[in-house]
């Protein structure tokens, strides 16, 4: 199958899929995907190290996940099943647009079920459902450099990573405790990967940090900052802390008001003007599956109403 421009499509099997023939498979041309794959492989070889790559302009603004989209495009095969989440939800603008984008340009199957997906692109959450060795988790990263707000010079932060000069990161945590009595960082909580590089896990809540040591491959793409980094399966990932102020993966002290789960990460939703609020799972797929299995929360409608 030839495009008007003459580029060969990535795989002959895509012919069967309903792709827009104006695009190469998964939008990017083969040379670009190859370049990104090389960066991904390098990132996997040096866990936590930020690999520079030649980030392309994507048909969406910076900050909407251009890095994650490029990594996903380079990772996808026609047989993959894609899931896209934004803050845990499958149905928000960002997730819906990116999912449509790959349906149109790659023709891959899409799903909302975490267990059925082979590639999951995520913005700011790790799914509640444990991931397996057969899955790849792609993060959208706004600012890949964990030392950025402590040291503005890129030349200096690179040197600090090279020399493992990470005292400054702990100064930040010290300042938090001195001023607030506890480490106040609740998202993008810095971690040390495989005992070597300090890494920003992208703005996931610190509740998700313990899950970073997982069987799935984790890839991080920052489009504007032109960096890719990775955590290979079963790599030790340690959240930074002090001996007398240990890391605490906290969440709202509540159970989900829709499905009753008390171990999932919760969003707080204001429901009226009188201070009424409810807590719901931020992972919509997890919540939905639990409700389908018959679990109910404190504010669930009566079962009769659900069936109606």
């Amino acid at each position: 199958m030839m495009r008007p421009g003459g580029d060969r499509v990535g795989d002959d099997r895509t012919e069967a899929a309903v792709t827009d023939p104006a695009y190469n498979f998964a939008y990017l041309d083969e040379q670009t995907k190859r370049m990104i794959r090389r960066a991904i492989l390098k990132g996997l070889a040096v866990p936590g190290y930020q690999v520079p790559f030649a980030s392309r302009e994507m048909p969406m603004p910076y900050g909407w996940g251009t890095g994650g989209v490029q990594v996903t495009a380079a990772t996808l095969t026609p047989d993959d099943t894609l899931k896209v989440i934004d803050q845990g939800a499958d149905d928000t603008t960002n997730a819906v647009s990116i999912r449509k984008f790959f349906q149109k340009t790659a023709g891959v199957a899409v799903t909302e079920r975490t267990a059925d997906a082979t590639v999951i692109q995520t913005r700011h959450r790790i799914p509640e459902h444990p991931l397996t060795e057969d899955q790849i988790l792609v993060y959208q990263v706004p600012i890949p450099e964990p030392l950025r707000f402590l040291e503005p010079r890129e030349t200096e932060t690179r040197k600090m990573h090279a020399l493992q000069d990470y005292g400054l990161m702990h100064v930040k945590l010290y300042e938090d405790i001195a001023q607030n009595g506890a480490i106040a960082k609740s998202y993008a909580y810095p971690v040390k990967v495989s005992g070597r590089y300090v890494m920003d896990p992208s703005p996931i809540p610190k509740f998700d940090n313990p899950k970073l040591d997982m069987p799935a491959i984790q890839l991080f793409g920052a489009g504007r900052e032109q960096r890719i980094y990775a955590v290979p399966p079963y790599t030790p990932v340690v959240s930074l802390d002090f001996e007398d102020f240990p890391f605490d993966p906290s969440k709202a002290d509540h159970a989900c008001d829709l499905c009753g789960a008390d171990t999932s990460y919760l969003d707080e939703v204001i429901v009226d003007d009188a201070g009424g609020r409810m807590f719901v799972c931020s992972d919509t797929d997890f919540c939905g599956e639990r409700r389908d299995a018959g679990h109910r929360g404190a504010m669930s409608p009566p079962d009769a109403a659900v069936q109606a």
Partner: protein
Amino acid sequence: MTPLLQVTGITRTYGARIGCRDVSFDLYPGEVMGIVGESGSGKSTLLNCLAGHQRPDSGQVVFDTRADGPRDTVAMSEPERRMLGRTDWAFVHQHARDGLRMGVSAGGNIGERLMAVGARHYGDIRGQATDWLGRVEIDTARIDDRPAAFSGGMQQRLQIARNLVTGPRLVFMDEPTGGLDVSVQARLLDLVRGLVRQMGLSALIVTHDLAVVRLLADRLMVMKDGNVVETGLTDQVLDDPQHGYTQLLVSSVLQV
């Protein structure tokens, strides 16, 4: 006795201009050496070369490390040199702002070196920070204030505390009293003298203020146009200067 620091033939040029030329000396443990000279005489260039901030064009700086004995720090790898920079060495800048993190509280400033060498117990770090604030005569209630809220003299004392907290063996000081008024200078000098004697530190003090070296230094090195023109015991050099430039320098001090 092994010298703590053996300097041989340090030369640093800036294109055709000479920073410092063929400087050699030994510094023994517990000794304080003053380097004096007018502006542009190469004092700071020399100090930066010795402390590893600049790379000398030629020469050796052999430091007696705790682990491996005498090592040439110029030929050392960058990680090793940085490690020395936050354990056995300390550098006190002329302007406290260059040596402090202005956006971080006093306690965080003192704790940084501790955390950089692996301290991970908040209570211990804070305890040491409090202890050091006391030793440099800063009210310990101000541990969570930022250095920007401190006076110039307090900032300089905080910088000294931040540098000495890891128990270094060699301190480089670049005009530590520059820009402070005389009564504050006197207190600072008194403090530094006390700490140097108490901790058995070796120090290299660069200054153009002869009173500072008279008070602190055991030995003196006089520099002019990048060259060392006279060395000797402090009192000997100041009371009986031999070189024409040293005579000029000594006679230029205003008598009150």
